């Protein structure tokens, strides 16, 4: 057994991981989530805004991070829509545009009373990374002469009185990397003392925690926090519990649990094999 495990082909580990993730998906295994204090800070940052407040929805994402960030983006969108906030979507990543359109489809389907140009708008993507942030924080119209669909921003009602991102009451950033939350903190939240919350991938989240609470109100780190935030939004607006797509993050916690148990077991097993080998004087 020792020899078999010591020379175990990694493809068996991949197969085990596939089964560990696939089985809860097919059996729809979910677990209850209790929002943590950090998630509740993010929730309250949006919940405490008065109706009609302006929120910049900066989606700096791509399809490769969709599994983690789409549940956050959708939950932020639903929460802001429930609160009747004005949503300004923009992106620093070119492949974020389809995900902004996914968020807008949620608004069109579930909140048909909200109107494009009055309640939400899509400023779209601009190349230039943090250069874009540096411009829009002082003059948004310098860079955004039109919205994503080519409509002049001066004809869009919700752009009245918005000359820069400083007009926003809150910045909500969903970030897959650079440019993303770090740059929004560096060029907007810190120098202009703007209130900001973020949702980030697991890889990125540990680098962002030092910004809390002075520069960032809170962050949703990876799918676990996304699921907790979905739960917080559902607790606040129980009718959302009927919408299956409003529980994407919650659904993904089943595979997470089984996958993590498998990883922990494999780490323990690998260590046991290592120590057995060391005791036997096996240096291979």
């Amino acid at each position, binding site marked *: 057994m020792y020899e078999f495990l010591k020379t175990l082909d990694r493809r068996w580990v991949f197969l085990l991981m596939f089964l560990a993730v696939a089985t809860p998906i097919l059996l729809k295994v979910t677990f209850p989530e209790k929002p943590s204090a950090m998630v509740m800070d993010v929730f309250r940052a949006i919940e405490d805004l008065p109706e009609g407040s302006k929120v910049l929805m900066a989606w700096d994402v791509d399809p490769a991070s969709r599994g983690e960030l789409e549940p956050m983006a959708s939950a932020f969108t639903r929460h802001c829509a429930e609160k009747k906030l004005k949503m300004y979507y923009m992106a620093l990543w070119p492949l974020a545009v389809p995900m902004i359109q996914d968020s807008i489809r949620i608004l069109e389907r579930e909140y048909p009373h909200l109107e494009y140009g009055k309640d939400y708008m899509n400023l779209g993507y601009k190349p230039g990374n943090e250069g874009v942030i540096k411009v829009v924080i002082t003059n948004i119209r310098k860079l955004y*002469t039109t919205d994503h669909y080519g409509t002049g921003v001066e004809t869009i009602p919700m752009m009245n009185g918005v000359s820069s991102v400083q007009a926003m009451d809150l910045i909500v950033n969903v970030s897959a990397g650079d440019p993303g939350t770090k740059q929004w903190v560096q060029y907007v939240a810190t120098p202009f003392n703007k209130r900001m919350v973020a949702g980030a991938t697991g890889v990125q989240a540990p680098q962002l925690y030092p910004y809390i609470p002075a520069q960032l109100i809170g962050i949703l780190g990876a799918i676990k926090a996304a699921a907790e935030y979905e739960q917080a939004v559902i607790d606040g607006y129980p009718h959302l519990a009927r919408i299956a797509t409003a529980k994407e993050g919650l659904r993904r916690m089943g595979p997470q649990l089984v996958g993590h148990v498998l990883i922990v077991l494999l780490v323990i097993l690998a260590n046991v094999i290592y120590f057995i080998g060391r005791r036997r004087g096996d240096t291979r």
Partner: protein
Amino acid sequence: MNNRTNAVWAIIFVIAAIFLGWRIATGNFGRIYVKGDPVSVKAEDGSVAASWQTYTKVPPRDHLESGVSVSIPRTIGLWASAILTLCIFSFLYGDNPFYKTAESIVVGASAAYLMVIGFWTQIIPNLIGNIVPDWTRAWATPGLDPEAKADLVYLLPLILSIMLLWRLAPVGGWISRWPLAFFIGATAGFRLIGFMEADFVAQIRATIIPIWVRNPAGGVDIWASVGALTMILGVISCLIYFFFSLEHKGIVGRTARLGIWFLMVTFGAGFGYTVMGRIALLSQRLEFLFYEWLWLNNPTADAVSGTASLIMPALGG
């Protein structure tokens, strides 16, 4: 791999192929149904100036409703997406031509998408639109501000862009170094300011906190105090670990060792988060394959919501 392992893998692949073949034979998967809604725009005199159809995706169980049809382009997209996902997954077994093909398609499509979107979101509205606004409005962006005037300052970035592209010319490649130097200088300048303010000064300020944290009742908040003390110890010990002007001996050595422990805990947390992220990505792709492509127990399709059946019932639901 030995022969026995090869045989086991062959059996696994044959079972997967049989399952797929059965699903194809029964025909109950891999289609996208849409419902068309007519949209029309009226002219000032009340006549219809333009009309078209918008198509919304509907669950498969609604396929018998009037106006619902199979969307061929979306179905092709679904199959392309599923096949490319499987091609990428095949790398787990080993490098192979399917993986290479999928990888090349991703790289090529991403590059083309980036070029097209950059052209229409930046070069047209922000560069050409500022230099010749009337002309741009006439052929490309009708929504551009009709009162916009030509701003010749934008000739400068145009010239810099041409100089940058000069690199492709057979002679005078050195010309591209000037705009490059400008971009590097400008980027370094504003990145320096950002880091100094947000990552240096603000982070030092965030570390200057009381070790004994008082609760609203006036007593000591033990856990908050432990947290503050841990943070200060972590910052100081990690800084000392990276301070190489003193030999790591005695109190300095012991503090540096504590710094290593803090760093290891940080790396462990980072690894844990990375595992969580990767499992989330895998589960999202498997959800796509199982729910959207194979129609297995999809919780977002009303047809099977609340049922215990593993396989989505035939189209009639």
